[in-house]
């Protein structure tokens, strides 16, 4: 009888584990084919720590690309991300990460990214500023639909896109252009979180 109960408990445990294993964002489950985390590039964050984007798996990620010397557009992009962060419900904030990926890896060294992060006063436990090699930047940009090129002023002409990744790294929503308020983005994020619960 005890053996039978133990077997039942074991079966229940295995079943629960199996359900948990296929939960979105579970690191043990295979990645969906259109997940950005299939790009296997190695990045370096503002603290000089190497990491892959897939490290953020299991969180909702707000990601944008730009560069720190950018005079107008990138501060506006970061401002939109800050707006989103500031308006996140408290219980959701811990489940969200922010990533700003440089398109200017030659100049945007980790110390430069660190200073950029500090200038905006963001919570660096939840915000990551990344630099990588040119190939990795190009691959990620293409996957996000982000367009950029060097301009004659020594900077870049580029898109303004803020993307929302679900827990498995799939693009759930994109805001094109900067906005006075990113209310639509925030609503999508809240809806995504509710559907994941």
């Amino acid at each position: 009888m005890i053996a039978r109960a133990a077997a039942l408990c074991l079966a229940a445990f295995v079943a629960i584990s199996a359900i948990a294993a296929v939960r979105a964002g579970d690191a043990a489950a295979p990645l969906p084919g259109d997940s950005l985390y299939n790009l296997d590039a190695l990045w370096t964050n503002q603290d000089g720590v190497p990491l892959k984007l897939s490290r953020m798996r299991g969180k909702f990620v707000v990601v944008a690309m730009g560069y720190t010397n950018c005079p107008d557009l990138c501060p506006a992009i970061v401002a939109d991300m800050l707006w989103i962060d500031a308006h996140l419900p408290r219980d959701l904030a811990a489940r969200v990460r922010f990533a700003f990926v440089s398109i200017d890896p030659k100049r945007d060294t980790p110390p430069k990214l660190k200073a950029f992060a500090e200038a905006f006063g963001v919570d660096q436990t939840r915000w990551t500023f990344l630099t990588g090699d040119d190939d990795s930047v190009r691959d990620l940009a293409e996957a996000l639909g982000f367009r950029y090129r060097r301009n004659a002023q020594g900077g870049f002409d580029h898109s303004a896109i803020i993307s929302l990744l679900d827990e498995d790294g799939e693009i759930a929503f994109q805001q094109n252009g900067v906005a006075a308020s990113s209310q639509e983005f925030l609503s999508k994020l809240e809806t995504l979180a509710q559907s994941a619960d």
Partner: protein
Amino acid sequence: MRGAGWAAFAALLVASPAAAESRSAVVPAGFYAPFERVKAVGAASPATEETVPVPAFRLDVTPVTNGEFLAFVTEHAEWRRSTIKPLLADAHYLRRWTDDLTLVDEAQRNEPVTNVSWFAARAYCRAQGKRLPTTTEWEYALADAGRGQDEVRRISLEWFAKPNAQRLGPVGAGYRNGYGLVDMVGLVWEWTLDYDVFAMSAETRDPNGKDAAAFCGGAAAGVRDPNDYPAFMRFSLRASLKASDTADNLGFRCAGNP
């Protein structure tokens, strides 16, 4: 014995670096007048006679063939039709092939590979120690220092007028330009590294301004030659693409350092 000797000689030819080198041609350094005239923020009009320096580079003589791409996917299983991630190619990837590792027939081996995404083209070139050419490099190579431009235009217009053929025909049979490059036009469209830069909106360059280039007619004022219909077609086609897109008449060739 004589046959065996010839086979060995042929194998040596295939394997020798000199033979591999002959797959590409050196395009010498020079200046390129971009098709698109970018209006600097705050400027009243686009720059007029702006040229950009282009360092020397190598470019494959012909587009990459099905046979060459088959050898690549045979070695790199993650780029096969049945295994590629949807992030990296759409559902039409390599659809002209019979299956993962089988071409329709032997003739297809020497036809240009098509239905390959930007990601796949880039991975192929990387595996050869090469890269995709930039749009500037590709267009500079086509410009051919001014040689044969009437011929390029004629071939382009005839090509546009024809419906897509079921079979593309072998590479290497088309017009050879002054650098020794063949089939730059008339056979397939070709991916470039930064294929999408032409599609950048006026707002991207001047996010807070009322840029005239954003309005109808503005585009024609911002190109080198508004009458160069084939160039409009090339830049528009590239601008319409996403990196995971594939098409029946879209291939590529690789570039490298001289």
